């Protein structure tokens, strides 16, 4: 599996650390139920999924990678820094 890093080009996935689903965004402090959702509950889709990968052995950027969990095909990778704030 190769991940197309916007800085480094296509690199082996073993250079990256995986942080899972990119969808959950940290809720405001004080809402315990929303915080439990954020920490523990996942959609876990079978199909295209946006997820966070960290290019630890490369440019050390956080990426949002769109990958199909059924066949591991990657359709997009962009810098997480370009996301709108939560």
């Amino acid at each position: 599996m190769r991940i197309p890093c916007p800085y480094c080009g296509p690199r082996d996935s073993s250079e990256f650390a995986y942080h899972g689903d990119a969808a959950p965004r940290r809720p405001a402090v004080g809402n315990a139920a929303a915080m439990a959702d954020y920490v523990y509950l996942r959609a876990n889709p079978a199909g295209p999924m946006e997820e966070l990968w960290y290019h630890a052995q490369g440019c050390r950027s956080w990426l949002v990678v769109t990958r199909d969990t059924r066949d591991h095909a990657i359709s997009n990778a962009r810098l997480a820094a370009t996301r709108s704030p939560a």
Partner: protein
Amino acid sequence: MRYSVVSLLAGALTGNRRWTPAWRDAAPKPAYDVIVIGGGGHGLATAYYLARTHGIANVAVLERGWIGGGNVGRNTTIIRSNYLLPGNIPLYELSLKLWEGLEQDINYNAMVSQRGVLNLYHSDAQRDAYARRGNAMRLHGIDAELLDQGAVRRLYPFLDYDNARFPIQGGLLQRRGGTVRHDAVAWGYARAASDRGVDIVQNCAVTGFLREGGRITGVETTRGTIRAAKVAMAVAGSSSQVADMAGFRLPIESHVLQAFVSEGLKPIIPGVITFGAGHFYISQSDKGGLVFGGDIDGYNSYAQRGNLPVVEDVCEGGMALMPAIGRARMLRSWGGVMDMSMDGSPIIDHAPVEGLYLNTGWCYGGFKAIPGSGYAFAHLIARDEPHPAATALRLDRFALGRVIDEKGQGAQPNLH
């Protein structure tokens, strides 16, 4: 029919041509008392114990594929109960006790072999951690022995004891652990459940739930609508997909775990060995193949196949542990999809939707748990209260902060 020495001899003398199928390949009826979604080890065991222990035999097991085609046929066949935390220990020990009487119970040779599970330690700190684990086991009445290097050498003289980075100092041994023929577990439970009246329905995928007033009253399937007073799900790998149909999310990610087998060799490894400095475990099947595995690939996957970096990592672990393995050729590798939970421990509980029961989150330790999980799940379904061995395995433990995190990794499923 009951298997016996007489029936085996009669089969042999007639060229083994007179055996009939071991269980009924049933067509679904319009309604049941209980529907179990998922015909893997956990689903079949649940149906069996519903019929045997609770007298509920009007049960259907709905399997999307075929019996034995999922994780029950994809694991590395190891059984053990060497857990640390009080929330987990009773369930796994219940399971090991049921393994010990399984073959007599279901009249089927599952090749339960208590050949011992040895976890090696490679540092003083790891020795202390294993001593603590062994003490926790013994406090629960479970066998555990802390071996020094000399005792491990007598068991396994061929390991690399003087490895410069990971010298083997000793190990924690559970003699009652071992291996079981996994296919026979699927077939044996299927046969035993079917004999008691359970309908095993193959090629029957659940596509949706029936509801009346918010309560689940049955399922829509590719083989028609089936009603039931209670619906239970034991669908490891696909738990989030089934939960999504019922309208809720789970603290679960699906990950792929690979397993490997070598060409057949003469007997060399009498028990199960795990490497403590990496993630690698190995045993030898009765057919002679070395059966081994290691870490999950580490990213969400429903693909039932993995990638090469983990193959390399597993083989490096094997070479560090027993360099002789480098002479053997790898025959096959495959992948199975695991329910990785947020604390690394399973869930046996009511679902957030009335009428639905939940059995999920076994991570990559589901095979050893099959009898205990089925027994406790059947108890929950029949009596609507948790089995005493599974009281901590609740769904709400995450929101309440009562997680059961054996490794202390936090809510990061790919690290458990």
